[in-house]
């Protein structure tokens, strides 16, 4: 009986593994499979694709899309995956199956197509021209409370570079909080300005670090720059109730009246005992003198 159970479960496991590895089992109608990708592979679309990938796909499929993420998932750079048409991949991303969630509501169609393009480029990096290095400089306007990023070429001529998407962040304890518009592209003078949001809490002095990044960009290599300003409200590390002295507080937080009373009783009782003993000795001494 037990043997039968074991062999049955082995068969089941093999069967289920087969289902996972063979993407052919996930049936996609030919209409959907033939759906053409409306986006061309260009650096701008690729940036959208890479941003979307790192936001929505990276956690499970891994940073290199090799399936080594937080859960075991199919590799997106394998031959089996890549031989599917764009239409098939689009259908699978939108509908989802088992552990793969449906991204229909989460992502725009154009973002999904961009991700597909990005995955195509991952196995074929020569499809986009190599990226170049740029320099990113930050300046702050204290009156307007705004940050201006200036992107220019590395050489001494400081040629301004137009149309670079800059991501602005505020540094927080566990991560970076995005500020500014969804896309902050540099203008003809290579500059773009974002306003500092209101109601931001800084450190104890109200100091906030703003970080600007060129990232996930296929024309320019990643670079970042940071600037600190006292524009936030000062952090008030709370006068929390649980830090007050209370009857249920720990050793170090017991109420003062309790400490006085408990220790007073101990001291009082001991004082009486010591006083009595002292007097007993005095009586004994006095007795000796009297006998003499």
């Amino acid at each position, binding site marked *: 009986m037990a043997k039968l159970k074991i062999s049955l479960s082995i068969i089941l496991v093999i069967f289920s593994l087969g289902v996972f590895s063979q993407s052919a089992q996930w049936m996609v109608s030919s209409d959907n499979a033939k759906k053409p990708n409306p986006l061309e592979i260009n650096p701008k679309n690729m940036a959208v694709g890479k941003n979307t990938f790192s*936001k929505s796909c990276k956690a499970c499929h891994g940073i290199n899309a090799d399936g080594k993420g937080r859960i075991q998932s199919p590799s997106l750079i394998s031959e089996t995956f890549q031989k599917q048409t764009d239409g098939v991949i689009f259908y699978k991303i939108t509908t989802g199956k088992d552990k793969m969630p449906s991204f229909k509501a989460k992502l725009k169609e154009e973002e999904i197509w961009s991700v597909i393009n990005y995955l195509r480029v991952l196995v074929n990096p020569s499809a986009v021209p190599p990226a170049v290095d740029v320099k990113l400089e930050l300046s702050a306007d204290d009156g307007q409370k705004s940050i201006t990023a200036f992107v220019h070429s590395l050489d001494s001529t400081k040629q301004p570079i137009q149309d670079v998407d800059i991501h602005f962040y505020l540094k927080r304890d566990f991560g970076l909080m995005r500020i500014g518009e969804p896309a902050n592209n540099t203008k003809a003078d290579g500059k773009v300005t974002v306003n500092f949001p209101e*109601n931001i809490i800084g450190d104890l002095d109200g100091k906030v670090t703003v970080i600007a990044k060129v990232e996930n960009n296929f024309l320019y290599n990643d670079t970042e720059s940071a600037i600190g300003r006292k524009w936030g409200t000062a952090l008030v590390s709370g006068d929390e109730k649980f830090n007050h002295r209370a009857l249920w507080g*720990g050793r170090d937080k017991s109420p003062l009246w309790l400490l006085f009373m408990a220790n007073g009783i101990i001291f009082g009782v001991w004082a009486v005992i010591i006083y009595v003993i002292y007097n007993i000795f005095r009586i004994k001494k006095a007795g000796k003198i009297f006998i003499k």
Partner: protein
Amino acid sequence: MGEKEKDKSRRKFLLDFGALGMGSLVASSLLTESCSKIGPGPGKKVTLLNSKNELVEVDSLYISTLNKNLSPNHNSEGRKGLPGKKFVLVVDLGKCKNARKCMDKCASVHQLRPDQHHLNVLLMQDSEHTAPYYMPKHCQHCDNPPCVKVCPVDATFKRSDGIVLIDNERCIGCRFCIAACPYTARSFNWYEPKDAEKYKDVPYNIELNVPQKKGTVTKCTFSADCLREGKLPYCVSACPNEVYYFGNVYEDAVTNGTTGETVSLSGLLAKNSAYRLMEDLGTAPSVYYLPPKDRALIPEKDNENNSDDIKRKS
């Protein structure tokens, strides 16, 4: 007779304590001496006190300074809490798909047996006609913690940064805290903990609850050891489904453990009409739940867990 014995043990304790203090003094002076001399000649032996309290002789060539905090100092530091912080966890119930990566990670770092949980993913169904959902349940790190109030030996305590911890070296195993906790967040070491052999010589870390001790209570620590290093807790950074947000209340920012996206805490709570568990008890938890709306996976009533249970019973 009893009085005498007590006295003896106290004297012994004082003696030991003095010896230990002297030993560490000698060792530290030796250590600083050896460190101040750069590039000592080979063959020069230095006597050091190791973590097992043994004096050992080491060639001065092999000595290098560590920048790490040694754990004994750490433990008194561990009762204080990190300044300027009060931690908060937000759980998005709509995202949880019962992947259980958080539980696996938690059990592996905290040396937990399969039946012990610092964190448990529960299948919930509020009433007969409502749909079930998965709910990860941690210690709620209450601001008015019933468990801390009942501890007779000051083993469990609330730090200034809001974390409720337990000192397994003080715990006497009375389990009052387990009885007091309305969230069943604590578990007891009824048996020898998992991998007890492996952790035998590891110095106790109050922020990690490791090594666990048989006969003491263990609980979720909000991964205080990670927070000290500025990292997200183990469970938060293990989640593949964007369930957890973690952050500092004073800074009004929480970071998602999966995407790394940082958002405003007040905005997140307001937009999703967040709630806390058993608000009416006045425990003021530090864990917020976002209602299970637009669920990523609607569990079936006879889901894998249930059928697993049924399987085990038959």
